């Protein structure tokens, strides 16, 4: 078996904010009935987290889980262990209407950090990023210029972005352009 590589081999750029491709991330799309006790237990077993509220992300030492839609979650776990987690979920939810799929290799992951991070994202996504409007634990699916993507803010003040792997180069170039040192707007400064 060949060695898995992330789309951009960990490329990074320092401008108004630091933009980096963060490598392979384990991701599972899980759809089902959030109100089901079995579903909640399966999420807890896989990530150590309860089902998050609307547009929120919950995290633990084991993994994280993000709210994608009223019937869809994104589970973030260790890349190497994804298939085992999917198997565990499928077994736990056997007989219950659900979908659990390993989507890790369909995705690319980025981090945007530093002083200008809010502005770098606000320039390319139609989301209110003012402090107080978007905070740690908030999760948002949106578009980044012309491509779909989702992002969240962690407790350390780092924005994390996931998008389709097929548009990884576009996303990276977009974020780098938005982080160009001479493009400062200073709206959140």
């Amino acid at each position, binding site marked *: 078996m060949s060695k898995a590589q992330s789309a951009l081999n960990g490329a990074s750029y320092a401008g108004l904010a630091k933009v980096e491709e963060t490598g392979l991330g384990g991701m599972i799309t899980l759809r089902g009935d959030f109100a089901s006790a079995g579903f909640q237990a399966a999420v807890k077993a896989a990530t150590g987290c309860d089902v998050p509220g609307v*547009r929120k992300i919950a995290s633990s030492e084991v993994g994280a889980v993000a709210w994608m839609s*009223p019937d869809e979650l994104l589970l973030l776990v260790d890349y190497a262990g994804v298939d085992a987690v999917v198997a565990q979920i499928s077994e736990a939810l056997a007989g219950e209407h659900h979908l659990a799929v390993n989507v890790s290799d369909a995705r690319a992951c980025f981090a945007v950090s530093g002083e200008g991070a809010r502005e770098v994202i606000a320039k390319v996504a*139609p989301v209110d990023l003012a402090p107080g409007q978007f905070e740690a634990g908030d999760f948002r*699916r*949106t578009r980044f210029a012309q491509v779909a993507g989702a992002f969240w803010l962690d407790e350390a003040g780092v924005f994390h972005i996931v998008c389709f792997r097929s548009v990884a180069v576009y996303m990276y170039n977009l974020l780098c352009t938005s982080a160009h040192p001479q493009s400062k707007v200073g709206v959140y400064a």
Partner: protein
Amino acid sequence: MLILECPYCGVHAEETELHAGGEAHLKRFGPGASDEDFHDYLFMRENPKGVHLERWRHVNGCGKWFHAARCTMTLEVFGTYTAQTSEPPQEIKDKISAKRPGWTWREFSA
């Protein structure tokens, strides 16, 4: 800029996060229907100057389809509501009536 609140994820989405899905509450006429009903189902659409009911999809977001009631003349939005209905809920009808007394749209009215 048109801004609609997605009833599923609560985002006040601006137009570029949304995809327009045409007229709301169409009744499908398929196999076994008369030619006239099938023709009307395929081709006949409302084109009002004023109150209009539409389908929208939060495509760059939670991905869900929903309904919106708005005014095509002023772009005023009366409200958005779930896709799991074949007619506008009373709450939406009341909101339209408050702004456009005596409104009608297809078989629906104040």
